[in-house]
């Protein structure tokens, strides 16, 4: 593709978009699909045809709008009217009233403005507003312009500098400065170099990356291609969980579309830069998201992490310099290049710029996929965006960071969300899960649940994680059945310290967090289980023994 062709196509698409008075975006992401989104989509198409408004109204199949609690969700533009729990029957009425008679159906609208008020959508800028399967849709909203800019008007070092100045940190969890990582790979000797986009989001209850891939795959591809240009890579892999069939399908089609348009492949935009992307499927291993394990998995081996150094930047795939970024990190890149690092670094906090996507789930009134500026407090997320816990229930704890994130109590809710504050409190940013618990959840049982998850997902290479976590699980399981005595709590803390400090990779190093934080902030619940043989939440002691509440 020539630079002019991109501009022409964008203009043409923009005009086409503007020629419609209405645009109906039907969310067909994994969250809405199981609840009949495709039927709703075809109902809208039929209704538009039957009503004879085809020329005025465009019906689009889009990715996630973000309000998963009202699935299937439908967004009508202009005006961003959001309809909830849409059925084929409702679709008919919406077309009749809203499109034909220009009277939005108030009774079907999602009236929750607070849900969006504190959100800021950078990564999810296009989610729910474009058809992920049409590359033209992405180009119409300015897609691939950043790549054009990078390839034709910036040096690789210039790109790295811009990303470094933006202060962007890796969104996969560890929060390493992206610009710095790119620089390491750019300076490493060895050829070829590789870029890996990490979409192995295996955390239970986390679906931000998947949603991104389903809603805006080209943002990932564009960010990845820019990264490749910056570090001098010629080949890229997107490593995606095979449990995400829709994301896999969407990415596959997006890569094909980009190739057929010449946005991937040889001599992109008639420059000397060539880059190709291949999709690699995971097969059900949480640990494969760890950056050395992902290398093993792409090389067709057991996804067992290895010690670092050497870092993948020096010795990655097949021993070659390799850049590994989370897909959310990559999706930020095009915007940073187009709007500038200064704009980006003005968002969030001084040390932690930009936004973060979270899957907000658990005992919260408005679960869904949210994107918020860094530095927002947990209280704002849980109570304003999330709408608090269900009526009649009391907030108990919030877990941030996936299965190995810590649990934070009420008194820490004013903690700002950034890497440093969370780590200090015993939680982690992780890949972006926020799970809210109310007074019906038992903290001992919950710690046990997450420990069990990590036991199942441990690769088994190192002793602390393989054998230590299992013993930790057994002890916690004992507590929920009335076993153990109070001195066991010291033993648990000592064992947790060993696992945390001596494990080989991040999985083991963070796995004790749920136990350690619940011990720290909810110790009374442990004491109650062990001494009084009672579960305050009434969850444990199912098989006889002391009764619950």
């Amino acid at each position: 593709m020539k630079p002019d062709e991109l501009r022409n196509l964008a203009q043409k698409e923009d005009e086409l978009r503007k020629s419609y008075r209405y645009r109906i975006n039907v969310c067909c992401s994994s969250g809405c699909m199981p609840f009949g989104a495709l039927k709703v989509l075809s109902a809208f198409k039929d209704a538009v045809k039957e009503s004879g408004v085809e020329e005025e109204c465009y019906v689009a199949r889009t990715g996630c709008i973000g309000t998963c609690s009202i699935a299937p969700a439908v967004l009508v533009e202009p005006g961003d009217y959001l309809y909830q729990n849409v059925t084929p029957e409702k679709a008919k009425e919406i077309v009749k009233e809203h499109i034909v008679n220009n009277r939005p159906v108030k009774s079907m609208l999602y009236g929750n403005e607070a849900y969006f008020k504190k959100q800021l959508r950078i990564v999810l800028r296009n989610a729910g507003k474009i058809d992920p399967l049409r590359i033209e849709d992405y180009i119409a909203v300015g897609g691939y312009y950043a790549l054009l800019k990078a390839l034709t008007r910036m040096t690789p070092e210039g790109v790295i500098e811009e990303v470094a100045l933006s202060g962007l940190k890796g969104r996969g969890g560890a929060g390493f400065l992206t610009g710095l990582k790119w620089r390491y790979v750019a300076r490493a000797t060895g050829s070829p170099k590789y870029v890996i986009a990490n979409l192995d989001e295996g955390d239970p209850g986390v679906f931000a990356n998947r949603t991104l891939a389903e809603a805006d795959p080209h943002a990932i591809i564009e960010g990845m291609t820019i990264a490749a240009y910056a570090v001098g890579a010629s080949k890229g892999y997107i490593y995606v969980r095979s449990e995400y069939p829709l994301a896999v399908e969407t990415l596959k089609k997006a890569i094909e579309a980009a190739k057929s348009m010449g946005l991937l492949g040889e001599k992109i935009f008639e420059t000397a830069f060539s880059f190709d992307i291949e999709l690699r499927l995971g097969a059900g291993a949480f640990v494969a998201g760890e950056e050395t394990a992902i290398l093993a998995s792409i090389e067709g081996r057991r996804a067992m992490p290895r010690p670092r150094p050497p870092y993948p930047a020096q010795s990655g795939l097949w021993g070659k310099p390799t850049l590994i970024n989370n897909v959310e990190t990559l999706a930020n890149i095009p915007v940073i290049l187009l709007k500038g690092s200064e704009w980006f670094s003005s968002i969030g906090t001084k040390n932690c710029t930009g936004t973060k996507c979270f899957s907000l789930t658990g005992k919260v009134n408005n679960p869904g996929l949210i994107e918020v500026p860094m530095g927002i407090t947990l209280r704002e997320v849980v109570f304003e965006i999330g709408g608090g816990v269900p009526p009649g229930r009391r907030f108990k704890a919030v877990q941030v960071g996936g299965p190995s994130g810590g649990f934070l109590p009420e008194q820490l809710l004013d903690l700002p969300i950034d890497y440093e504050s969370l780590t200090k409190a015993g939680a982690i940013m992780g890949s972006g899960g926020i799970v809210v618990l109310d007074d019906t959840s038992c903290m001992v049982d919950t710690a046990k649940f997450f420990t069990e998850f990590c036991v199942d997902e441990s690769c088994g290479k190192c002793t602390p994680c393989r054998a230590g976590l299992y013993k930790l699980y057994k002890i916690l399981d004992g507590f929920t059945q009335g076993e153990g005595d109070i001195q066991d709590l010291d033993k648990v803390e000592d064992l947790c310290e060993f696992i945390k400090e001596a494990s080989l990779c991040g999985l083991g190093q963070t796995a004790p967090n749920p136990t350690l934080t619940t011990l720290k902030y909810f110790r009374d619940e442990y004491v109650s289980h062990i001494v009084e043989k009672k579960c305050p939440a009434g969850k444990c002691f199912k098989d006889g023994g002391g009764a619950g509440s």
Partner: protein
Amino acid sequence: MSKTVELTIDGKKVAAKEGDNILKVARENNIYIPALCYLEGVSSLGGCRVCVVEIRGSPKVFASCVTPVAEGMEVITDSERLRRYRKWAIELLLAERPHVCSVCVANGNCELQQLATELGVDHLRVDRKWTNYELDLTHERFAYDPNRCILCTRCIRVCDEVEGVHAIDLMLRGKNSKVIFDLDDKWGFAESCTSCGKCSAVCPVGALYVKGKPLSEVKKKELVSFVMSRRSEKTIG
């Protein structure tokens, strides 16, 4: 030519080849660091975590078998914390499968047993797991008891890197991991196995052994050095 770096281990100044790991350098200088999965001559795993050390300036601990030396590095091989961690590592390995020394072929020649003595692991604070893997006696010369395996993968590495066969690997993962021959076949029917015996020679415990002989007679240590000398011949040749 590789560069030489200078570092201190427990205050003692030593010179080392750049790229070598701390454990190897310590041993060359007669400084003892307990270790279990490490085996000189094959690649390091960094799995057992017995060989952890501290490096001044870092709050973390490092597995010395996989941490390369660096100029000016100050390594500490013994501290209250390190002893506590090493004890946990041994304790967890002992509790992971039913290690019963009194009826084990390796009794008296077992590295796990020896480390338990040395580190004072005189009891277990966690419940033991009494696994019941089937004893594999199908090979005419060797035997394999998975109930005694500590998953150090020495056998896997020596079979792959020294014998060049890779008849052994791990199946499953995490706590369910198990050392297998071919497709979890019985040893005697594993077609890839060349019956060279290196795996049983390097097994630090009594999981892989030569039938009919107590390990004290096999003189394990000598066999190990035999294996390693073969390796160097191979590399040179």
